[in-house]
């Protein structure tokens, strides 16, 4: 389906994409620091949401434990940097390796033992929480006291060690998001993508016609977990502290997937749109409810908005926006 979007990309869609890209590239020069910090969060969630989307959208497995891959990536690169002075540019490969191994292990168990749907989701939760509790007891990684990265070099940007200003982190995460989008769109138009689609449309038919299901699903899982691990590296160096009691938690995994689900699972731009809707929605609700001086009222309305999206746009926001803006042939109503 995704490739269909690209193939059928209307001039209007391409123009929109170009405008959005240009605005995002220019953004740091005209937005204030607060907006920039919100944009950074948006892009981070767009990025990890995109990575997560590969797992459900293409391997058909619902993961509620993606915080595991973020955390593994974050801890691996941070530990290498703190303990051995390894630059994150190098550390990122170790981070990818660790995340991919974990992803493949979970994916392998899931596929081999035919654990699907909610059961697979619980398997991912169990792995994430389990690992979190273990890391909570490894004093070399700071245990539950947390792992702190030394914060230095704040005035000049050092891209090799990922030390620098928010603007630098903004461009790094923007680049990552762009690359992830490009990668996904390329994958979908490749032979691999065709197999994924065949599997998604009709798993049994695909298997019957000789598509090696297991291998192609594992590839999707590996790419998804590896990409997510890269997000973790960025996270570690942007926030500079890691605590297992928050990093590995299911609530963290839920934050990762919210954008994608709201935006539209299985679509290329859904995760990006979702992130661009949800984070600003939170900020807007904070601003709107501030005058009421009631703690918690913001989250209530936030929940209400999300519930409304599920009830009224059950395919996610992207297909709806796609039709609304006339970006291509009508799609809503069709099964994703």
């Amino acid at each position, binding site marked *: 389906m995704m490739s269909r979007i690209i193939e059928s990309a209307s001039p209007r869609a391409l123009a929109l994409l170009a405008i959005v890209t240009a605005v995002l590239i220019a953004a740091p020069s005209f937005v204030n620091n607060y907006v920039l910090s919100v944009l950074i969060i948006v892009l981070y969630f767009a990025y990890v949401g995109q990575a997560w989307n590969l797992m*459900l959208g293409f391997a058909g497995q*619902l993961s*509620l434990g993606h915080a595991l891959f973020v955390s593994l990536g974050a801890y691996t690169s941070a530990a290498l940097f703190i303990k051995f002075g390894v630059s994150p540019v190098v550390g990122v490969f170790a981070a990818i390796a660790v995340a991919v191994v974990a992803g493949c292990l979970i994916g392998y*168990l899931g596929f081999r*033992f*035919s*654990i699907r*749907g*909610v*059961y697979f*989701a*619980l*398997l991912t*939760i*169990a*792995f994430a*929480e*389990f690992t979190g*509790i*273990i890391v*909570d*007891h*490894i*004093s070399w990684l700071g*245990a539950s006291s947390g792992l702190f990265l030394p914060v230095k070099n704040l005035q000049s940007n050092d891209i090799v060690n990922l030390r620098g200003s928010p603007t630098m982190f903004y461009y790094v995460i923007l680049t990552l998001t762009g690359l992830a989008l490009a990668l996904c769109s390329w994958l979908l138009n490749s032979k691999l993508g065709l197999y994924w689609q065949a599997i998604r449309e009709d798993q049994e038919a695909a298997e019957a016609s000789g598509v090696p299901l297991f291998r192609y699903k594992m590839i999707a899982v590996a790419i998804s977990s590896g990409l997510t691990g890269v997000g973790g590296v960025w996270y570690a160096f942007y926030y500079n502290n890691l605590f297992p009691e928050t990093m590995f938690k*299911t*609530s963290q995994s*839920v934050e990762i*997937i*919210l954008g994608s*689900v*709201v935006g539209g*699972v299985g679509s290329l731009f859904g995760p990006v749109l979702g992130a661009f809707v949800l984070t600003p929605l939170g900020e807007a609700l904070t601003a709107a409810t501030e005058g009421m001086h*009631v*703690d*918690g*009222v*913001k*989250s*209530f309305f*936030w*929940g*209400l908005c*999300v*519930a409304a999206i*599920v*009830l009224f746009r*059950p395919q996610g926001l992207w297909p709806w926006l796609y039709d609304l803006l006339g970006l291509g042939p009508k799609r809503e109503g069709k099964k994703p």
Partner: protein
Amino acid sequence: MQGRSLAFSGSHVSAQLYLNVAVSGLLTGLIYGLSALGLSVIFGVIRIVNFAHGEMMVLGMFATLVLFRALGIDPLLSLPLVAAALFAFGYVLQDLVVRRVAHLADHMQFLLMAAVAVMLISVCLMMFGPDAQGAQVSYGFDSFAIGPLLVDKVRVYAGVAALIVSGLLFAFFHYTLTGKAIRACGDNYTGARVVGLNVRRLYALTFGIGTACLGAAGAIMLLLVDVHPYLGPSYTLLAFIIVIIGGMGSLPGALLGGMLIGISEALAGVILQPSLKSAFSFGLLILVLLVRPQGLLGKVAR
């Protein structure tokens, strides 16, 4: 690893310690089991995973607290009232909201229930504030001494109440017409429609019964744990573990799973470092998912 924290404490433990801990774990497990029943009933029939499970139980705990504070009703006596209130809540929620997402993919259902959970937490925070609050009953600190065994009175009452509620539930599903009809819906949706059952009403009833279980569990739980708005998520995860281990949709399975987790967490706490005991539960969950995904008492997947 912190060497100290993993050290086995063999020299101190005695048979008496194990016995005390196991009995207490068993009783606590019964209550966990009751709360997990609510999850199991809903999933077994409606095939919806209630990710707002823990938050609904917290709602039940707050309702019990209000009755205790305002009218001085003992949590065990207010149990039927709270269960009834939560039943109404569940019935309406299913009929107005959840029903509309029944045909959607797992992740959309998950998102809806997560949003409901967020709203429930916010409402509790706004109404009751963030502090942990409990109901202090007169027998709250008593324990029975049976030889070397010290059994917490509250846990005994709570465990017995959990058994009674589970028994009633079991009887309802097996000996009443409505109960049988609900089971029929769960076993064969199309069949149930064909024979003219009012599936919509039965589903709402089922969801209501599931949340009523949570209300009952909440009322009992308030005797053991102080309630605060953010208590829910850990109970949601716990209930999942129990239900998977016992078998999704199996009522005795949920009770058995609860007791197993209760005892094994308790013993893991003695043998290993207590801070590692939830790792033990998650490990058990992984094992069961791989070896026997239908759970101990679950039916083989259709």
